[in-house]
C-alpha cells in the first residue's frame, strides 16, 4: 500500500499566552495528540466549533506551523520546515483555500496575473506556457479569459472563490486544505462551489482536507469525518457511519443541531458553551456539557478506541455501550 498524501501522527500544538504584562505564562493546548490521515483521492471532513483546533490542524498539515509533538508526513516523508527550499517545493503540491476569497486575493492585480503567479514563483516552463496554463485552469473552474482581465472586486463572490481555487490548482497539487471555503457564500453560490470541488476531485484525483462547521456541506463532500472538540478528535470514521450512528454525545448534539436535518426527533440542547482551550476541563473535556456524563468522565480522559470497523470514538460511555452490545452477541 502506498503512503497516504497526508498523515498526522499524534501531533500537538501548544501556544503560550501571558496573563497581563508580568503574568505567569499560560500554556494553551490548541491541538492535542491528533492523528489523522487523508487517503489519496479522498476527502476528510474536519468538523468542530470555534476553538476546537481544526484550523490549527489544517495549518500544521501544510507545515505553516511545526507540531510541538508528533509528526506530519506526506507520502511517508516528513513535511519540511516552513520557509526552507524543500518546503517551498512541496507547497506546489499542497495548497490551501480560505474562507474569504476577497482577503485571499490581491485587490490590485488582475485575476489572470494572480492565477499565473504560482507558476512564475515555481518557474514552470516559459512565460507563454504559464499564461496558457493559467487560462486553462481558469476555464476548468468555469471562468473565461474575460474574467482573467478583471480585478477581484469586479467579480461576484462565487467567481472570486473560483479564482482562488484556480490559483491553488494551477500548480497541479495533490492535496487541498480547505478552511471553511464556502461559509461566507450564499446558499446558491455555495452549491456551485461544492459541486465544483466534487467535479475537480473526480477529474484530478485530488485529496481534500475539508475544514468546516457546516455538517450539511461536509456530508455532501466528505468520505470520512473527524469531529474535533477542544483540540482533540473525539470521533472519526466513514461519513455515513458517523452521521447515521454517532457514538459520541458531542457528535450526537452537533447532528441534532443541524436545522431541519430530518434526523433528530428531539434536539439535544447542550448546556453552556465550548470552554476555552486555556481552561481545559479535567478528564473528558466535554464532560461539563455532556448530558450523559458520569463520575469517571471528570476524572479520566477517554482513549480513542475502535467501536467497529473504521469507526473510532473517544468516550467512556460510547465504548461501554459498544462493549455491552458486543458481549450480548
Amino acid at each position, binding site marked *: 500500500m502506498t503512503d497516504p498524501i497526508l498523515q498526522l501522527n499524534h501531533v500537538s500544538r501548544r501556544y503560550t499566552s501571558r496573563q497581563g504584562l508580568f503574568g505567569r505564562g499560560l500554556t494553551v493546548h490548541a491541538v492535542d495528540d491528533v492523528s489523522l490521515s487523508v487517503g489519496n483521492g479522498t476527502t476528510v471532513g474536519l468538523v468542530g*466549533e*470555534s476553538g476546537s483546533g481544526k484550523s490549527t490542524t489544517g495549518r500544521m498539515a501544510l507545515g505553516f506551523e511545526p507540531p510541538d509533538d508528533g509528526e506530519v508526513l506526506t507520502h511517508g516523508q516528513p513535511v519540511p520546515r516552513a520557509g526552507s527550499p524543500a518546503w517551498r517545493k512541496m507547497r506546489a503540491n499542497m495548497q490551501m483555500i480560505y474562507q474569504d476569497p476577497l482577503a485571499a486575493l490581491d485587490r490590485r492585480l488582475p485575476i489572470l496575473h494572480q492565477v499565473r503567479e504560482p507558476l512564475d514563483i515555481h518557474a514552470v516552463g516559459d512565460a507563454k506556457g504559464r499564461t496558457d496554463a493559467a487560462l486553462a485552469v481558469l476555464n476548468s473552474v468555469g471562468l473565461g479569459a474575460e474574467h482573467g482581465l478583471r480585478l477581484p472586486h469586479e467579480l*461576484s*463572490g*462565487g467567481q472570486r472563490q473560483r479564482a482562488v481555487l484556480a490559483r491553488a490548482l494551477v500548480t497541479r497539487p495533490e492535496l487541498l486544505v480547505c478552511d471553511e471555503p464556502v461559509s461566507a457564500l*450564499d*446558499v*446558491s453560490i*455555495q*452549491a*456551485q462551489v*461544492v*459541486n465544483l470541488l*466534487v467535479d475537480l476531485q473526480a477529474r484530478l484525483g485530488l485529496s481534500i482536507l475539508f475544514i468546516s*462547521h457546516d*455538517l*450539511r*456541506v461536509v*456530508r*455532501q463532500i466528505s468520505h470520512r469525518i473527524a469531529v474535533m472538540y477542544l483540540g482533540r478528535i473525539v470521533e472519526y470514521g466513514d461519513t455515513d457511519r458517523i*452521521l447515521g450512528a454517532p457514538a459520541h454525545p458531542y457528535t450526537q*448534539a*452537533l447532528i*441534532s*443541531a*443541524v*436545522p*431541519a*436535518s*430530518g*434526523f*433528530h*426527533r428531539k*434536539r439535544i*440542547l*447542550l448546556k*453552556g*458553551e*465550548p470552554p476555552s482551550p486555556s481552561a481545559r476541563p479535567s478528564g473528558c473535556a466535554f464532560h461539563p456539557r455532556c448530558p450523559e456524563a458520569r463520575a469517571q468522565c471528570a476524572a479520566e480522559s477517554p482513549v480513542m478506541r475502535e467501536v467497529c470497523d473504521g469507526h473510532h470514538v473517544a468516550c467512556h460511555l460510547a465504548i461501554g455501550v459498544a462493549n455491552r452490545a458486543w458481549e450480548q452477541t
Partner: protein
Amino acid sequence: MTTQFPGGIAVDGVAKAMAPPLATPLLEIQNLTVEFDGVRTIHGLNLRIAPGEMLGVVGESGSGKSVTWLAALGLLPAKAAVSGRVLLQGEQLLGASASTLEQVRGRRIAMIFQDPASALNPVMRVGTQLSEALVLHRGLQGAAARAEAKRLFDLVGLPDAAARLDAYPHELSGGQNQRVMIAMALAGEPDLLVADEPTTALDVTVQAQILDLLGTIREETGMAVVLISHDLGVISETCARVVVMYCGRVVEDTPAEYLLDSPLHPYTRGLLAALPSFAGPRRRLATIEGQVPNPALMPPGCAFAPRCPERQWMCDTAVPALAMKARGRLAACVAMQAPQAVPLHWRRSAQA
C-alpha cells in the same frame, strides 16, 4: 372570477389575493421603497406582523432583508430616500419626529444584530450598558435598575447573573454577548423584536441555544419576533410564517410548514434544492444559474426571470404581484401552478 386549483382550493379574483386576514396588525409596512443615490433597492414592499407572531425573513445577501427593517426604524443614513408607510398600531413611523422615534426604538421595537461584540461598548461593563437601557426606557434608577438587570440576565440564561453584570464584553463568549444583547433588547419590554442574523456568528450548538431562547422569551412575554436569516433550515424550524425576499421584493409568504414541503416560487425551490440534504443518497446539488442582478440594472419584469428555469414570455413584461396561490400562501409568480412535489428527503425533514 373563481379559479379552481388542483389542490381543491377556490380563490375569488383579486379581492382575497391579499395577506391572510390577521387580527389588527402590530406593524404594517405599506409600499415601502428605499433608494440609495437613485438606485432602488426595496421596491414597494408590503408586510404585516400580528401581535405575538414569529415571522421569518429569508433571503440571500442583497435581497434587502436587513435594509427593510433599518428603513422602517429610521436607521438608514440620510442619503437613503425612503417612502411608503410603516404603521406601528396605526401610527406612521416614516418621517416621524426624532422624539417620536426615540419613544419607539428600543421601547416598542428592539433590534439585535449579527455581531454582538461590535454592538456592545467594549470599555463599559455589560451590566452598566443594560442599566442604561433600563434608565432610558423604563425610568428605573440605582438598585431597582440593577435588580431588574439581574432579572433580565437570569431570563436570558446567563449563568451566575449577578457576577456577569460586572463583566466586560471581552470577558464573555460570543453566545454570552448575544444573550446580553437580547437582555438589552428586552429592557424596554418591546412589542416587537427584530433579530437580524442573531446566530450567524455563533457556533452550531450555541445557535441552537439562542434560537430556543428567542422562542421561549416570545412565549413568555408575548412579544412578536422577526427573525432575519439566510438559513432556510433555521427559519423553517423557528418561525410560524416565512417571507422569502429576492431583490427587494417579497416573492413568497407562507406558513413555515409548507416552506420545505412544497415551496411555491421557483426561487424558493431553487434555494431549497441548493441546500445539501442530510439524509438519503448524495446527489449533485442543484444550482441557480446566473447571479443576483445589479440593483441599478434590474430586469423589466420579474427580477428572477433571467435565472428562472420556468420562465415564460409574460415574465419579462411586468413584475408579478404577490398573490394568493393557496390558502394562506402567497407568491409573486405568474406561473399559477399547484404546489410542486419536492424530493422525498425534504418531506421527511418537514415531518421530523
